[in-house]
Structure formats: structure tokens, C-alpha cells
């Protein structure tokens, strides 16, 4: 039996990126919402809800980047220069928010600065990720084994829109996470924000979904051609179902279902992007098999991944379990 290693790895890398998007999504979202909740004690509570897990969450981003380098080096070496500016901006923004986790507690006089760094860094990182995604979806010009476009090709109305959409989407994840993890004032604010962010996210998912097929005939064929449509049609239906559960959960003031429904929106949008891309890894010219490293590189790392990824999922789950339940505000100690 021969395994289609590039296909397996495309699935694993996609899983890593998805894990990153949903996990760091909610903790970036908490950062995006930082300015919308007043009171330092409340901000303490928000930050504490993600403090024990944020660096684990960001490790998935390293796996996405490092994994791409390892198994699809050609894709890595084309995509990174093509998305130069948004990637660099994202990295710098992540530095801002990452250090804020520690620095914010070290000073009272300068605390507002780190509040700002946390909010600013989270928002800009989310926006840059959305722009990078949009730029990838709209296609990358390739000649030979290198990026052949200009340095501003990533900047289009579409990519700016996907940037904004991701900020709103992460804000929704953050708000529903806070509903799950906090109480009282922060939770009430999170409900209010989620009521705004939920319809806005759904509208933006709708706009991107309708816009994408017009970017390239390949996408249109993928979504509307026969028999692809059979595979594609469940996705929008499930999005509608998730939207219903999300709005129902919010109106009934449920604590868990809004977060799960928001996660499911992200997973479905991600699957939608996967349907658009396949079998390309660099739209619209480089396929998974073109970009893959030789099989012995793929199989060498696959052995490790098969053993280690379940372990990682296990102890990550354990860590979430240890810190389960509501986060208490620091102010609650008085």
C-alpha cells in the first residue's frame, strides 16, 4: 500500500492552521475586545482567562509555518515573499500583545500602555492574518520556483475586507469565550458585544462567500460545477444551522453553546476555503504535489507527527482541564 503523503500532510498542515485559528482566535479576540470593557479589574479577569494557554495556542502558528517549510518548502518560499508586508506586520503585532501578558502586571503607572499594546497588537495581528488569507485566496503570481508579483499585490479591496472580517470574527470568538469563562460585568458586556458581532460575522462570511467565486473561474467551478456542488452544498447549510444555534444560545443566555457555535462557524469557513483551494496549495498554480518535499522527508516527519500530535492534543486538553471553570476577577479577593 502506498500512502499519498503530500495529501496526508496537506490535511495535517490544514489541521494545524485551523487549530491556530480557533485557539489563538479567541485569545486574540479577547485582546480585540480589551478597549470595550472598562475597569482594570475587569481587564485583569479578561487577560487571566487566556493567560495560561496563550503561548500554547500560538505554538500552532509556529507549527503551521514550520510545517509548511518542512513539507511544502516550495509553497513556503513562494507564499512568504508574496505576503511579505502582512506577515511582518502580523509578527510585530504578536510581539506587542505577547509581551503585554507579562508586562501589564509589572507596572501600575504604565499599565494603560500595555493595555493598549495588548489591544492594538491583537487587532493588528488579526487584521494582518485576514489580509494574508484574502491575498492568498485571490491568487499569487508564480514564475518558475519563485513569487513573480509585486510588493503591493496583496493589497486589494478583497484582502482588506477579509482582514476586517477576521477581526470581527475573532471578536465574536473572544466574546463567546468570555461568556463561557467569566461572570458578572465582563460576562454581561460579552453578551452585548456578541449580539453585535454575531450578525456582523455572519454577514461578512456571506459577502466573502459570494465574492470568492467571482475572483477566479476555478472557484466558481469548484462551488457550482457538477458534481462538486454535492460536496459543497452541505457547508452553507451547516453554516446556517450554526448561525441559528449561535443566535439562539445568545438570546437564551446560554454560556457554552455560543462559543461552540462560533467555533463551528470558523471550522466551516475553513472547510469552505479548503474546498476552494484543493488541489492547489498556492492558488492558482502550485498543487499540493508540486510543492511537496520528497517522500522520505514527509514520511520521516510523519512518524513523529503520528506519535506526538495526539500527545500534544492530550496535554493541551489536560492544561485546559486544569484551568477549567470561571476565572475570578482579581478584585474578587478583597
Amino acid at each position: 500500500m502506498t500512502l499519498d503523503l503530500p495529501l496526508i500532510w496537506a490535511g495535517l498542515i490544514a489541521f494545524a492552521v485551523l487549530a491556530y485559528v480557533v485557539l489563538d482566535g479567541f485569545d486574540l479576540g479577547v485582546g480585540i475586545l480589551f478597549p470595550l470593557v472598562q475597569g482594570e479589574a475587569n481587564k485583569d479577569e479578561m487577560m487571566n482567562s487566556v493567560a495560561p494557554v496563550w503561548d500554547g495556542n500560538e505554538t500552532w502558528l509556529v507549527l503551521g509555518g514550520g510545517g509548511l517549510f518542512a513539507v511544502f518548502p516550495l509553497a513556503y518560499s513562494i507564499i512568504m515573499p508574496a505576503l511579505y508586508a502582512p506577515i511582518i506586520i502580523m509578527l510585530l503585532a504578536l510581539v506587542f500583545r505577547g509581551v503585554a501578558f507579562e508586562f501589564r502586571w509589572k507596572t501600575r503607572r504604565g499599565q494603560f500602555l500595555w493595555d493598549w499594546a495588548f489591544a492594538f497588537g491583537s487587532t493588528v495581528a488579526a487584521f494582518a492574518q485576514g489580509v494574508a488569507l484574502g491575498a492568498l485566496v485571490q491568487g499569487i503570481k508564480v514564475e518558475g520556483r519563485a513569487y513573480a508579483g509585486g510588493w503591493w499585490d496583496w493589497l486589494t479591496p478583497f484582502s482588506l475586507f477579509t482582514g476586517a472580517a477576521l477581526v470581527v470574527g475573532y471578536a465574536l470568538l473572544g466574546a463567546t469565550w468570555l461568556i463561557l469563562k467569566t461572570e458578572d460585568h465582563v460576562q454581561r458586556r460579552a453578551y452585548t458585544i456578541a449580539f453585535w458581532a454575531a450578525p456582523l460575522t455572519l454577514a461578512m462570511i456571506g459577502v466573502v462567500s459570494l465574492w470568492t467565486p467571482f475572483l477566479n473561474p476555478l472557484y466558481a467551478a469548484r462551488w457550482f460545477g457538477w458534481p462538486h456542488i454535492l460536496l459543497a452544498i452541505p457547508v452553507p447549510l451547516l453554516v446556517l444551522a450554526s448561525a441559528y444555534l449561535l443566535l439562539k444560545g445568545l438570546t437564551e443566555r446560554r454560556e457554552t453553546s455560543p462559543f461552540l457555535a462560533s467555533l463551528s462557524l470558523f471550522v466551516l469557513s475553513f472547510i469552505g476555503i479548503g474546498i476552494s483551494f484543493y488541489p492547489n496549495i498556492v492558488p492558482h498554480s502550485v498543487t499540493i504535489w508540486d510543492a511537496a518535499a520528497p517522500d522520505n522527508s514527509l514520511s520521516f516527519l510523519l512518524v513523529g507527527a503520528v506519535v506526538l500530535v495526539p500527545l500534544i492534543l492530550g496535554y493541551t486538553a489536560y492544561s485546559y482541564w486544569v484551568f477549567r471553570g470561571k476565572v475570578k476577577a482579581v478584585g474578587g479577593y478583597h
Partner: protein
Amino acid sequence: MLPDITALDLARMQFAFTVSFHIIFPVFSIGLASYLAVLNGLHLWTGKAVYLDLFNYWKKIFAVAFGMGVVSGIVMSYQFGTNWSVFSDKTGPVLGPLMGYEVLSAFFLEAGFLGVMLFGRIRVGERLHFFATLMVAAGTFMSAFWILSVNSWMQTPAGYGMNAEGQFIVESWWAVIFNPSFPYRLVHMVLAAYLTTAFVVGGVGALHLLHDRNNQGARLMFSMAMWMAVVVAPLQIGAGDAHGINTLEHQPAKVMAMEGHYDSHPDGAPLILFGIPNPTEKRIDYAVQIPYASSLILKHDPTAPLAGLDTIDDALEPPVAILFWTFRLMVGIGFAMLGLGVWSLIARYRRELYNAPWLYRAAILMGPSGFVAVLAGWITTEVGRQPYTVYGLLTTAQSASSIDAAAVGTSLVAFIVVYFTLFSAGLFYIFRLMNKPPHPGEPGLPVDEPVRAGGIMPAPAMDADGDGLLNDQGARA
């Protein structure tokens, strides 16, 4: 503008800048994670409170340094692609899986157990908490293992072939991972991390002993650090020597430049202690040298012939002046560390270890010396490999992305501004934590809450546990 500076120069500056900033944090966290594991283990074993006090003291500093290491490290994993895309395409099949293993076996392990180590002691119990600390330490070590294997392969490539697309491919993973310079580099670097951390810990202990000779925590950390200096500094000098001999075998031009040997010495080469490299005349001016000593060190035979840079094509000659100085700086610090260790041993023998103000002052001065030595050592080995990224096979000029100088220049400026601003703040907070003496009942964690507050930030709010000592921590004052 500066018309002479090319996109390649800027990309190299950006890599040098970001990697130099980054390396400071992992070096410290490799050493400190092991130290924390030792303290945690000793507390579990002996039940003495002072070990837990020290654990909690250094844990706060570890958290700040680790956070800065994580975010500056993410930058590294993407910079290969943005600025060095040709290198990425060509070496991805070989180096990518090694880095993949680093992420899977090390980064996740560290990050996954860090939360429990920092916040979870009471939640999970002492034994599991010790286990979490061990996992964080193991993660830092495995990270060093893989990334040094990657670097060593670039220095001494082995076990590879080429495919039709011009990519390096792997013929033997064993030969790739355990390439000829890897064991030496791994030992040299891990010892460097331990020494660097020991001198930071020793410097902080000395600082507080200078003010209060009876501070038990300060005594313990100073004593432990000085034992490390005594034991590890000589090991490190031996490891460095072995590493140098290995380099002579595989990258002779690098050693010629380090030694300042412009000319060949058929009858035994002198060891140049000091001098001023003169690259235009290709000689060392004002050289102070010991005859035959270089041959003795490198060949273990005073009259063994040693080739000089006159046997190397000028285009392949690494920048001698940089290597000459950074190498001497590193070696000088190594011997100074040994000296301090010996001094502490004498003081210990005379039972004056806790009454030795001049030793304390010297230890404070030497506190940051490990970082300087590490940076000097890395500059030596990385600049010494020029003009190649993969030694003898792929040049640095061939490795770069074809990016506008303006784009690279702008991002370089952005990195410099952001790193200096944010990491200066981080260093300031670390110094402030170090400036507070350790004391009994060192605030650990908000015991039953996943709240950052008590563990990392001794907030006034956490005074609830009534030890009355939190406020004088002054972190939020």
C-alpha cells in the same frame, strides 16, 4: 539614501539583529528551566521552604524571559520564508523536518506545561507540578537539540543528495541529524546556557548578599551558582577546545580567521593573544604571541604545520577582523568565569563565602557576561561560515529572496524600533524583579485560582494570604 547597501545586506542585518535578540532569551530559559526543576525537586525531596522560595522568585523572572523568547522566536520561523526564500526552497526537505520535530517535541511541550508550572501548583499537587516543571525543562533542552542540529548541518552538511529541482534531499537522517559538528556544538551551547544562567543567578545572589549577608535565599542561590561556575567553566573550556579542533577539520578557514593566521606556518604556528587585524595588508599588527602554542592547542604538537588564509581564495575568506575579536572576547570571558569559580572555591574553603564583598562585586560585574560570551561565540561561528549559508554548497547571496531593498529596509527599521522599545521594557521589569531580595514566603501563586496576579505579579490584592510581605515587593507600587 545609501546606494551601496543592497537588499541582501539588509536581509543579513535583519537576520543578525532578530536572531541576536532572540538567542538571549532561550539561552537564559534553557538554563533557568533546569534550575527551576532542580529547585522544585530539592523542595519536594527535602521539604525545605527556602527551595520553594527560590523557585517562586526565579519563576517570575522566567515567565517574563520566556514570553519574550516565544514572540521573538515566532519571528524567526517566518523569516526564513520572507527573506531567504531560495534557501527555504532548497533546504526545506532536509532542515524543515528537523524544525518540525523541534516544534512538535519541544515548543508544544514547553508551552503546554508552562501554564501548569506557573499557575497550577496547588491545582495539580506538588508531584504533578514538579513533573510539569521537568517537562518545561525537557522542552527547552529538546528545542536546543533540534535547532542546533539544523545549524550544525548548515555548517557541516552530511547525509544529503540533490534532486532535479536543485533541492537538497536526505539520504540518511542519522547522518543529517548527527552531522560532524553537531555533538560538539550541542555540548558547547548547552553548557553555555547553564553557565550564563549560573552567572545571572550568582550575580543576583551576590547583589543581595552585599546588602544582607544573612539572607538565606541569596546565600543558597549564590552558593549553587558558584558551584556551577567551578564545575561547568572548566568543562566548557574543554568542550570549546574540542569544538575548535572539530572546526579545524571541517571549516579550516574559520579557524584561520579566528586565530588571525593570515600566513601559513609550516613549522608550528604561534598563538596570537592580541593584535590588530590589518585586512588590507593581510597581517596582524602589534601581535603579542606565544610561539608554537596554536599548533600545540589545535594539533597537540608544537611543530605541526598549520595552513593560513594565504591558502584560501580571497573570495572565500571570512571577515577576519570580526572573528579575531569576537573569538577572543568569548575565550576571555570563559577564563574569567573559571577565575571567579576558583575565587569562590578559595573563599568557600576559608569559610568566607558569605563574607566576601569583593567576590560579590566581581560576581555582580560578571552577571551578564554569559550573554556577551554567547553572542560573541555565535558571531564567531556564523560570520566564520561566510560566504556560505550551507557550508561549501550554497552561498548567502544565492539564498536570499528577491525582495526590494526598500521593503527589507522598512521591515528592518520596524524590527529595530519594536524590539528595542519592548524588550528594553522587558529587561527593565526583569531587573526590577532581580533587584528585590528573595525572602521567606516568597509569593507563589494565587494558589487556587488560575490568576496571573499572585504568581507573576505580587499584587496588593494577593496580600489576602496574610504573609504581609507582598506589599514590600512593590511590583505595583
